Structures are given as structure tokens and as C-alpha cells.
């Protein structure tokens, strides 16, 4: 009767097993540092331009939309606070993670998927390397290191975007007020949640991308399916998790 439950539960079990192995491998030789560096370059450096763009325009658009509301209350001077809190707590981490999911979860799924369907994963195992150690762990480590960095960049460039709209375009407030309020408003728990989120999202992006890649079957079509699934699943989880992490911090405060 519960047969329909079997495939998803099995899949979850496999996902948990893969995640467990990937984490255990962090503390176990051999370490493939070269692969970690290559992945850091692809995930981190490669994402800087797009993450900066997204950060800039999200900061700018928040300021733009908030300017009218703030005008109604005569609270234009508060604009720095609002931009800063929204970006650091929520939009910076989530938008960066969604972009990186689109770029890199898909990249991982398609790369590992192609390797799977051309028997390269089997060859790897036959020739003495553990694919989890060689492929999954470096991607996990690189994403965990790079996503918080990218988020910091996105947050900062977002604040610049907000500054340009608030102080240069709309003259809502002075540069000094904007920067000092946006700095002062941040508390430790804002910074904490702003950095814990990308760390959690990084784990989701890397593991989901690799998981769907490694379980690819059915030739090139299968690779396409794996890629789509990886991006969709990773993005959905990012939004679900940001809610729960946010809830946790709200209760804490």
C-alpha cells in the first residue's frame, strides 16, 4: 500500500549516505587539494561578476521601493538601516545562493552526470579512487568556503547600489548618515545569520548538485534531467531553509 513511498525514501537514504561520506572524507586522506583549488576558482572567482551585478541591483531596487514608503513617514534618513538589514539578513545570502545554485549545482550535476553516463565514474572506482572523495568532497569544501565570501561581496555591493539610489539619484539622505546608520544597525546576530545561511546553502548546493549528477542514468537526456532537478531542488531548499534559519534567529532574539 505504501509502495509509492519507497522511491522517495530510498532516494533520501542515498542522499544522506552520500552526504555522510562526503563529510567523513573531509577528515580522511587522500585529500585532493588541487581539485579543491580548481573548484574554488570555478565556483568562487567565476561567480564574482554575476553576484556583484545581482547584489548591486537588489540594493538599488530595495532603496527605490522603500523611498516612497519612507517619504510618507518622513523617515528618509532610515534608508541605510533598511537596506543594510534586508541585504545582510536575507537577500544577500538567498540571492547569492540561488545564483550559485543556477551556475554551479547545474554545473556539478551535468559534469558528474556526463562522467557517469560515459563510465568515467566506474573507471575512477576501478582505477583506485573513490568518486566521493575525488569529486564530491572538493566541491563541497570549495562551495562551503566560497559562498560566504560571495555573500559578503554581494552584501557590500548591494549597499553601494543602495547608496547610489538614495544619495545620488533621490537625495534621500547624506552619504555620512547612510553609511553610518547602515553600519550601526547591524548586530552580531545579523552577521551570524548572514554567514550561517550561506554555509548551510553551500552544503545544499554542492551535495544536491553532486547527488543528482552521480545518480544520472539514461545517456545525454538523463544528464539534462539531472541538471534541471539539481537546480530546482537546490533552489527550493534554499528558500525553505532560509525561513527556518530566520525563524530560529527571531526566536533567539
Amino acid at each position: 500500500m505504501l509502495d509509492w513511498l519507497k522511491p522517495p525514501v530510498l532516494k533520501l537514504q542515498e542522499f544522506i549516505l552520500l552526504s555522510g561520506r562526503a563529510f567523513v572524507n573531509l577528515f580522511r586522506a587522500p585529500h585532493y587539494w588541487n581539485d579543491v583549488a580548481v573548484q574554488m576558482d570555478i565556483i568562487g572567482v567565476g561567480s564574482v561578476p554575476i553576484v556583484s551585478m545581482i547584489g548591486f541591483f537588489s540594493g538599488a531596487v530595495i532603496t527605490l521601493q522603500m523611498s516612497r514608503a519612507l517619504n510618507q513617514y518622513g523617515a528618509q534618513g532610515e534608508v541605510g538601516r533598511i537596506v543594510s538589514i534586508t541585504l545582510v539578513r536575507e537577500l544577500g545570502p538567498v540571492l547569492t545562493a540561488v545564483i550559485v545554485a543556477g551556475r554551479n549545482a547545474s554545473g556539478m550535476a551535468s559534469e558528474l552526470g556526463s562522467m557517469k553516463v560515459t563510465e568515467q565514474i566506474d573507471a575512477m572506482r576501478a582505477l583506485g579512487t573513490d568518486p566521493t572523495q575525488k569529486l564530491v568532497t572538493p566541491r563541497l569544501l570549495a562551495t562551503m568556503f566560497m559562498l560566504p565570501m560571495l555573500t559578503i561581496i554581494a552584501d557590500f555591493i548591494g549597499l553601494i547600489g543602495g547608496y547610489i539610489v538614495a544619495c545620488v539619484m533621490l537625495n534621500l539622505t547624506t552619504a555620512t548618515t547612510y553609511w553610518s546608520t547602515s553600519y550601526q544597525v547591524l548586530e552580531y546576530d545579523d552577521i551570524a545569520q548572514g554567514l550561517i545561511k550561506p554555509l548551510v546553502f553551500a552544503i545544499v548546493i554542492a551535495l544536491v548538485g553532486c547527488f543528482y549528477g552521480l545518480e544520472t542514468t539514461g545517456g545525454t537526456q538523463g544528464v539534462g534531467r539531472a541538471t534541471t532537478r539539481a537546480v530546482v531542488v537546490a533552489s527550493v531548499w534554499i528558500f525553505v531553509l532560509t525561513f527556518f534559519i530566520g525563524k530560529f534567529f527571531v526566536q533567539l532574539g
Partner: protein
Amino acid sequence: MAEIPSDVLLRLDRVTVEFNDTPALKDVTFQLRKGETVVLLGASGSGKTVLLKTALGLIPPSEGNVFLLGRNITRLRERELMDLRSRLGVLFQEGGLFDSLTIEENVAYPLVNQKSLECPPEEIRSRVEEALQFVELEHTLEKLPSELSGGMRRRVGIARAIVSHPDFLLYDSPTAGLDPITANTIMALIAKERDLRHITTALATHRFQDGQLLANYHFDAKTQSLQPIGANGEVDVRTRFVVMGEGRVVFEGEQEELERCKDAYVAMFGRRWKG
């Protein structure tokens, strides 16, 4: 459990393999002894590849036991399997080359990564060159697999399989999708490796003439060419044929028995290329 004689390199004992409840191998018993050549014939989808992958411990059997080099690997951990796998060479169906690595890195891969081979780093380059010379591709060291033709990639795959000087070699459809001339080159290389180094060989193929070649020809070191067996002196080559159909072993025996076999499916492999 029965003791495995030391000359049995590989034994599958009543092995069943299932994917999502669909059996890919059904109650298969298969054995490879030291010094022999086994030709595994079968249509595509008959379970040849699954059999070879099960033998390597890449696919776990649902039932039955797999013995590799005297050890039961059915429930062995991946790390212990690695050491056993380092003693055999494999050529995957499409070559299985890593397309992000150069030919040199591909061929060096087992030497670099298989710790139990204990290959000193300064020897790696010369062994890679030696293996590539064997398949006559020593000029491609710096190239990427995508820059080579299908037949050349298969030859690099052979070089990678033999670079570790394995105890025995498994070839999965080495001639599939190649033109007849290239296919013959590949088969000549396989015979050459078998006869010069006396390597136990298992070959999965859907072409009977590949098996015929291994059964009836040997590589002569003096003339550097393939010669019919028995033409000049005794050559000790034992070739056994195993025919698979729908996940089962449907025939096992020598070439003559295969050619005489009345079973319609088996005869299809024995007769088509005869004469």
C-alpha cells in the same frame, strides 16, 4: 564455503543482479582461470557489461557470491576492493577515459592513485610512455581524449589498463562501434598483450570474429605479427567461449562446440562469421 583453487582468478557463484527489481543477471556462474582466454559473447543487453562490473565489485550482487583473486568480495568495503582492483586491468566499453585529463594523465592515473601499486613518482613517466608505445600512440601524451579518434581512444584505454602490469585483463566490447580495420587493430593489440606477457584475458563482445581471432591466432614476437596457432610449433592458448542471453549463461565451451551448437540464439554467434 568451498575453497577457491589458487589458479581461479575470478569466480561468480550463482550471482543474480537486479536493478529496480528487474534482473540483469540471473543465477550466473562464471569462472576465469589463470592463463586462459574467455570470450563472452552476447547481444547487447544480455548482461556482459553487468557481469564484468560485478566481477570488479562495481555492482553489488543481489544474490550469490563473487570471488576475486581468491577473496570473497561480495561484502567487501570499497577501500579493500581498491587494493584487489589494482591487480587487474579494465577497458570500459567506450574507453572510459577522463575527458578533462590529458592522455598522459589518463594513462598515469592508476599508477598515481592506486596506492598498493607503490609506483615511485620518477618511474611514472617512463611506464606511461612504455604503455603508450605498446599501443603505438606515444606521440599523443599532451593531447586531450576529445582530440583523438574513437579507435585511438580505445587504444589509450588499453594502455591505461596495462600500465599497472595487471594479473589479468577484462575488456568490455573493445570493438563496438568501430570500423572493421580499426577493430582488427584493437584485437591484434589485445592478442599481443595476451601472448607477450602471458596475461589471462576476458573479452566481452558481440562479434564472433573477435573471439575467433583470439582462439585461432597468437602474436608472434619474432615476426611482430599475428600467426595462426599451430602453424609453427605448439602454442599454449586455451580459449573458452561463454554465450549470454537475457542475463543468463546459455552456452559454455570450446569454439568447435559453439559452431556445432543447435540452439538458435547460440548458433547465431557461432555461424554468422564462419568460413
